[in-house]
């Protein structure tokens, strides 16, 4: 009896109880008083202990395709990063524009966006920000504009693909959308958003982007080849990354789930990296590789999936979907645009992962109203664009923003909430206007 759900819990209506638990957990996540993984796991346990879902049903509710995809990519990126390839790319790109500050801003923004499309956003900024701080210190220019650009472009680039941002991984996995689907439907929008965001950045900070020929010469003396610390690992990593990306592209025709591809890639890279090592060295290397996995994030996902499953089992998600349809009059176009704008504004202030986790079953519940699953496609793209791009609105909108802010603080170039919001909220709105036009022209 996996999906048996209690209707009355502690004398409360099940829907009311589930909503109460979910709202309390959500509020605590927003308050940031307690780690979000702890909260999600506590919420999941309450759902099970209260009888809203059985343990078996709770495990069924966890989307292991999302977990496996995240885990596999975290392992691959963690090992690849040790080769120094990402520093190489950043330095190479800065030298390509002769270390001219405006050119460096554009190049590092584009590199961030491209890397972010293939890697997790947080990982991308963790790799790019230290090199950015090095280059800007050498150029004697403020790092602030560069760091802000990297925040924005990590979130924008991540929107372009299935694996670029957790909301896309969740949507793709839950709905069965492929890597190619995301590239075909979202990448064009992301390219326009990129172009639309670059220009204002230049006008906002053009006065800060000046240096001396001597400083530029110092950067030009950097030897990017020296940044490659392990050429053998680099070859292995690039081979595995190419196989994994190729696997994602061919996944649909091969009928292989993305998590299998990512985990197979991680396993192959671990094997190649450790093949010639002694047993003791292998233990250390494998331990190091697994230590770099963000287990807190993965456990947050597990808890969240169970929490949302409990909410779904109690019928709350169906009720929310009905309310949204009622509010939009059941009109698909209005619903798509409401999801886009609503997701963007909410994602600017709250974590987009629990938000998307809640929205996915809600949108699935709307299928009958829009002629089945095929009719939901624009809604998924609206959710992805809104949730991923919305994270740019405030400093707390996405994990990558907070990571960059933390590094900036330690480097003595703090990024504050209000100044960030003053410039970036408008840039986020601009990206949503572009998305609005894109969705209208292409799907509505």
């Amino acid at each position, binding site marked *: 009896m996996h999906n048996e759900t209690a209707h009355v819990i502690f004398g409360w209506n099940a829907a009311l109880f589930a909503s109460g638990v979910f709202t309390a957990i959500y509020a605590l996540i927003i308050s940031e008083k307690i780690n979000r993984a702890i909260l999600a796991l506590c919420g999941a346990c309450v759902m099970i202990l209260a009888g809203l879902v059985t343990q078996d049903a709770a495990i069924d509710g966890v989307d292991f395709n999302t977990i496996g995809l995240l885990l596999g990519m975290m392992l691959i990126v963690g090992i690849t990063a040790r080769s120094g390839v990402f520093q190489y790319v950043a330095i190479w790109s800065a030298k390509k524009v002769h270390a001219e500050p405006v050119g460096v801003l554009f190049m590092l923004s584009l590199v961030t966006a491209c890397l972010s499309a293939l890697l997790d956003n947080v990982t991308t900024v963790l790799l790019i920000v230290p090199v950015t701080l*090095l280059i800007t210190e050498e150029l004697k220019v403020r790092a602030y504009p560069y760091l802000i650009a990297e925040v924005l472009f990590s979130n924008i680039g991540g929107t372009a693909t299935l694996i670029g941002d957790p909301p896309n991984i969740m949507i793709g996995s839950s709905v069965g959308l492929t890597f190619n689907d995301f590239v075909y439907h979202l990448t064009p929008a992301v390219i326009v958003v990129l172009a639309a965001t670059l220009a204002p950045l230049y006008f906002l900070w053009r006065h800060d982007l000046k240096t001396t020929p001597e400083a530029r010469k110092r950067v030009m003396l950097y*030897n990017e*080849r020296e940044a490659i*610390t392990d050429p053998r690992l680099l070859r292995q990593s690039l081979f595995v990354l190419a196989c994994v990306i190729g696997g994602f592209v061919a996944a649909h025709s091969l009928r292989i789930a993305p998590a299998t591809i990512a985990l197979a890639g991680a396993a192959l890279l671990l094997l190649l990296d450790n093949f010639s090592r002694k047993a003791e060295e292998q233990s250390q290397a494998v331990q190091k590789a697994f230590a770099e996995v963000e287990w807190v994030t993965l456990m947050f996902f597990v808890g969240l999936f169970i929490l949302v499953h409990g909410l779904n089992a109690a019928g709350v998600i169906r009720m929310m979907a009905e309310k949204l349809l009622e509010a939009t009059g059941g009109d698909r176009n209005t619903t798509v645009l409401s999801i886009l704008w609503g997701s963007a504004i909410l994602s600017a202030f709250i974590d987009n992962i629990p938000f998307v986790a809640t929205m996915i079953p809600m949108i699935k519940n709307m299928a009958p109203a829009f002629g089945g699953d095929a009719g939901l496609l624009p809604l998924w793209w609206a959710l992805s664009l809104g949730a991923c791009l919305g994270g740019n609105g405030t400093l707390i909108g996405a994990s990558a923003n907070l990571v960059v802010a933390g590094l900036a603080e330690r480097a*003595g170039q703090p990024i504050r909430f209000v100044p960030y919001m003053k410039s970036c909220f408008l840039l986020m709105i601009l990206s949503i206007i572009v998305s609005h036009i894109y969705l209208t022209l292409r799907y509505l």
Partner: protein
Amino acid sequence: MTVAEIMNSQPVTLRAGQAFAEGFALLLARRIRSLPLVDDAGTYLGMFEVRDVWEALLPKAATLGARGLRDLSFVPGTAADLRDRLAQAGPRPAIEFAGNESTPPIPPETPVKEAMRLLYDHGGILPVVDPASKRLLGIVSTWEILGTLG
């Protein structure tokens, strides 16, 4: 045996108002790795260490801990660059650089074995501080402890 019995109760110290350059000169002249920082009342404020000198000489990106650059092989550097960085840090108060030390202050009644464990874990020197007044009472290093054995 407690650290109070073996500590050096008249260590070389750096005053809160002194500049980075003075701290650096003292470290260099005495060939020591760290200096306790105190205010005029003798209150312990932190340690000024060789690590702080590295922090002033290295690019910020390399001093961000686990999240910083792990390799600087690709960055050429000259003695002139380093002197320039040292000159920039020179007038800044030494206290600005303190506070990152890994060695915790210990009370005078700390057993020597515990001090040995701390030195094994953290290296450097251990400031012995009165828990009530926060005054620096002395320091314990590897040499004070090994000296009792000789």
